[in-house]
C-alpha cells in the first residue's frame, strides 16, 4: 500500500520531529517543581505559525504532544492530560490572535500568548481534575509569572531564528 503524501505533510512531519526532539531533551532536565519547564518546543509551534499558517502550527503542536508522550512514556497519564489541555488552550489563543485584524503579532507576542494560554489551561485542568484544593490557587500567580518569562524567552529565540531564515526576511 502506498499513501500519497503532500509537500505539506512532509513539512509538518519535519517540524513535528524537531519539536519532539526538543520536548524529549527538555523532559530529561530536572525541574524544581512538577509542571514547570521552559517549554522550548513552543518555539517550533510559533515558527510554524509565522512561516506557514495556523493549520501547520496546530498539527505540529498536537503531534508533538502525542508522539512526545509516547516516547517519554507518559501517554494517557495525568502528565499527558495536562500537556494536551495546555496545548489545546495555547492553540486556541494562537488561533484567535492570528485572526485579529491589524499588522498582527511578532514571535514574542505569539509566544507570550501561547505560554500564558498553555499555563492557564494546564492549571485549570490540574485544579478541576486532579487537585481541587484552595491551596493550589496560591501557586497560580507564580506559575503565570514563570509562563510570562519563558514565553518572552522562547519568543526571543524564535525571533533570532527567524532572522537567520533568508526566505522569511526577503
Amino acid at each position, binding site marked *: 500500500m502506498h499513501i500519497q503524501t503532500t509537500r505539506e505533510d512532509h513539512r509538518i512531519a519535519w517540524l513535528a520531529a524537531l519539536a519532539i526532539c526538543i520536548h524529549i531533551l527538555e523532559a530529561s532536565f530536572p525541574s524544581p517543581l512538577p509542571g514547570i519547564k521552559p517549554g522550548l518546543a513552543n518555539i517550533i509551534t510559533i515558527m510554524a505559525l509565522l512561516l506557514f499558517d495556523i493549520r501547520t502550527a496546530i498539527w505540529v503542536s498536537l503531534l508533538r504532544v502525542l508522539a512526545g508522550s509516547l516516547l517519554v512514556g507518559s501517554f494517557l497519564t495525568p502528565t499527558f492530560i495536562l500537556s494536551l489541555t495546555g496545548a489545546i488552550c495555547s492553540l486556541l489563543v494562537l488561533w484567535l490572535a492570528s485572526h485579529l485584524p491589524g499588522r*498582527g503579532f511578532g514571535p514574542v507576542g505569539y509566544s507570550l500568548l501561547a505560554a500564558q494560554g498553555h499555563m492557564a489551561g494546564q492549571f485549570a485542568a490540574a485544579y478541576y481534575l486532579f487537585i481541587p484544593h484552595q491551596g493550589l490557587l496560591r501557586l497560580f500567580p507564580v506559575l503565570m509569572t514563570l509562563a510570562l518569562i519563558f514565553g518572552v524567552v522562547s519568543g526571543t529565540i524564535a525571533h533570532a531564528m527567524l532572522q537567520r531564515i533568508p526566505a522569511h526576511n526577503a
Partner: protein
Amino acid sequence: MLTRADSTVLAASVVFIACLYAVFWQPHATASHINIINGNEPPQQVSLEQDQVLDVKGRLGNSRIQIQQRRARFIASPCNNKLCIYQGWLQHGGELAACLPNRILITVKSNRRGFDAINY
C-alpha cells in the same frame, strides 16, 4: 523586534499577573474563636480576641486554659500524663488539644482548615 501588538500583550500580561497576585495572595483570615467541649455538655464558644485564663471543671478537677495573642493552650490539668499541656499553643483552624482523663477538648475554629499532613 516587538510589534505594537506584542508590546500591548506584554503590558497586559504584566498587569494581569499583578492582579492575580492581588487576588490569590490575600492573607488568610486568622482563627476567631475556640470551642471548649466538656464531657457531654454542648460546646462552649470562646473568642480568641481577648487574652484570658479560663478554669473549666471537668471530671477530675479544674483544667486551666490560657488564651493569649489569638492562641490557646492548656496550662494546668489534674491528669497524669499532661498530654493536653504538651500539645502546646493552638492557633490554626482545625488544631485541637484534648485531655481525655478530664474529658475536656479544645479546638480552634476558622473558615479555613489547615492541612493534617502533606505528601508528594
